[in-house]
């Protein structure tokens, strides 16, 4: 009682409500993935003892959100709608952080975990409108429509991609945050073009946007891809790889470049078809200045990684 009064006063959801909502989200995601949720799995998802998880489930049953049928836990329509709202709020908030904040990618999930309990359906409606009704969160998970079903992301695990097959990354799992942070650093994000170069027992050699990276099995396990029937030829590479004095044509901006950053680069003229030349590097090593449409623009290496260029044809390199 005191806690709920407190939560009313501070505007912060009570811990009991947070637990209920987290449990509902877990149940919905398990069911959507075709798995059977159990008391143990709920306990694991909430990080509590099984006794506590059972109490939360009993509470949810009393609130007509879940039903137990033949030993299996399923959601009622009310529970489903509630769970969908939580998942929708979570994924939209991640998209919001990606688009219009400076919060680093590895912290999106933790921020959204708190925001999902705070956002009302009206907040969520306003948010999706402001973001232009996005279909996927920045990890590649589909954002469920207000009353629609929660569907798992599609795509095959990167483990199963044959060597030399070009594919597009469709999903990068955001938990655990450490593994996700490493994947972000290597440039893996939904939309990146990858090709398996070699497959060893403990490591996977991968081309990502023209750069060679090595992934550990744990990292590989967290990436899903969709094979491309007609891969772009030649595959675009990153502007950061362009040597000083060379020119190239912009192929586009990487999908990992979002929000203000993306608009700024577009404003500066980094649009498909523009010819740019790497002019000079700062004496401190970064940034590099590029000649774009008669202007000299300095980009940091982290930004130049987000600009994709057509690799120069071999004969042009020979003459320059």
């Amino acid at each position, binding site marked *: 009682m005191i806690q709920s009064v407190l939560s009313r006063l501070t505007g912060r959801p009570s811990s009991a409500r947070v637990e209920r909502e987290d449990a509902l989200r877990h149940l919905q995601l398990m069911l959507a993935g075709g798995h059977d949720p159990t008391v143990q799995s709920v306990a694991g998802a909430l990080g509590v003892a099984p006794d506590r998880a059972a109490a939360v489930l009993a509470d949810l049953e009393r609130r007509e959100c879940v039903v137990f049928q033949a030993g299996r836990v399923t959601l009622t329509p009310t529970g489903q*709608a509630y769970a969908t709202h939580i998942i929708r709020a979570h994924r939209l908030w991640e998209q919001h952080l990606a688009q219009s904040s400076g919060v680093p990618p590895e912290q999106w999930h933790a921020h959204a975990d708190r925001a999902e309990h705070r956002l009302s359906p009206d907040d969520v409606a306003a948010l999706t409108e402001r973001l232009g009704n996005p279909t996927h969160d920045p990890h590649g998970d589909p954002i469920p429509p207000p009353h629609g079903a929660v569907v798992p992301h599609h795509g095959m695990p990167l483990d199963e991609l044959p060597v030399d097959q070009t594919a597009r990354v469709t999903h990068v799992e955001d938990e655990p945050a450490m593994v996700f942070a490493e994947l972000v650093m290597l440039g893996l994000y939904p939309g990146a073009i990858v090709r398996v170069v070699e497959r060893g027992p403990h490591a996977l050699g991968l081309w990502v946007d023209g750069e060679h990276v090595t992934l550990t099995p744990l990292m590989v396990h967290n990436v899903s891809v969709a094979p491309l029937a007609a891969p772009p030829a030649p595959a675009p590479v990153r502007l950061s790889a362009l040597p000083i004095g060379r020119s190239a044509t912009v192929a586009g901006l990487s999908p990992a470049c979002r929000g203000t950053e993306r608009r700024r680069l577009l404003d500066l003229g980094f649009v498909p078809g523009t010819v740019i030349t790497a002019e000079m590097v700062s004496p401190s090593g970064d940034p590099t200045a590029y000649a774009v449409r008669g202007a000299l623009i300095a980009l940091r290496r982290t930004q130049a990684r987000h600009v994709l260029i057509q690799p120069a044809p071999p004969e042009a390199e020979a003459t320059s």
Partner: protein
Amino acid sequence: MNDHPANPALPRRAAGASPAAAAADAVLATAQALREQIGGEFHDRLAETIYGEAGRLADRAVTRPGAARRFDLDRAVDRIVTSRTWGFPLMIAIFALVFWVTIVGANVPSAMIASLLIDTLHPMLHRGADAVGLPWWLSGFLLDGVYLATAWVISVMLPPMAIFFPFFTLLEDLGYLPRMAFNLDNLFQKSGAHGKQALTMMMGYGCNAAGVVATRIIDSPRERLIAIITNNFSLCNGRWPTQILIASLFVGGVASPAVASVVSAGAVVGVALLGVLFTFGVSWALSRTVLKGEVSTFSLELPPYRPPRILQTLYTSLIDRTLYVLWRAVVWAAPAGAVIWLVANVHVGGLSIAERAIGALDPLGWVIGLNGVILVAYIIAIPANEIVIPTVLMLTALSVRSVAGMGAGPGVMFEADGAQVLAMLRAGGWTLLTGINLMLFSLLHNPCSTTIHTIYRETGSARWTAVATFLPLSLAFVVCAATAAAWRWLGLG
């Protein structure tokens, strides 16, 4: 409380759907499928296509005769200005020259203005007031308080700014300053800041208020706030005199006379460099804590070199920067002068307000290695750092009555030559620790009220203004208290 089954605001849907609802579901499902088919990036595709098309039209219709040659010349200059060998030495040389010209060039006009406004006009006004028969408290309030503080600020502030700002604007106009940001960006990037902060820091050495206004060149919200909050750590020209005086009296006094001037100059440069270190450290901490969620982008255009338009530059830098900042400072200094005179002359129970405040703040002053006089001076001299030292001297003369013949009366700020000042300050209980901590406090303490007001105007946020004010102030207290504690623990004083 939560007696509803779930969230009451969620619309519930009947379990058994009617044919109409089924049809609606089919429409929604089709819409969803279409949306997935289009994909989430069509906004971007649209924007890219528009930009791309505009570029193609421009390429077809616009010719730029002679542009290529200009471009080549610019690149040749750039290769020197941003080269690994010459980039940094050139930068240091240019700014050493600007500072040297400012300091040397400002001495003469500063002394002239001071002798006119303070040594000649001030006594004249007093004689005039006596002749008209103004009561002592009115002439004291107006002439010793309001007039003297304003005259002081003008004489210290105007000449350096009138030299420094035009130089700065010339370099800006020429196109050199963006190259400097380009050279230094990596350093700032590592502390989460923008290369252009190098320019706003430089501006801050002239005046922090002008430095804060100059952060408009940084178009990324997070980096701009960092530049605003840390600009205070660039010693402004109102604080240089304090540093130089205290360094020569206390730090230089410790060394043997032969090297005294070198040691005291080294101490001032050391404090300025410490300010740079604090800028990087605080930038780093801010970008990883309170400012983490702010949007951050980087863009730096290196414009073509242009021959500077000297007259126009002189005009705009005088009007836009020098007079603007000076006017603000005067507006703040006049009331401060009034307050300074009042606290020294209004008596409560036999003691002036100033003496009571000094007594009350002395214990706190001791903890941070300063004294009550300095703290009171910093409180009433918030409007302008220029009048801190004159106020300190006046308050010391007021509280140390044993020093006969010093001072110009209660509430009248003054300056005196080195030996006299040193004798008086020592009588007031000053030690080497007091000197060092005053230098640290002067570097780190809160910005002056002109700057605080400017920060509020630029950020439009009371919260960031409060951070920019109290963060440096608490840093100053912590650093000074730590220095004092270490000093006493080591048994140095």
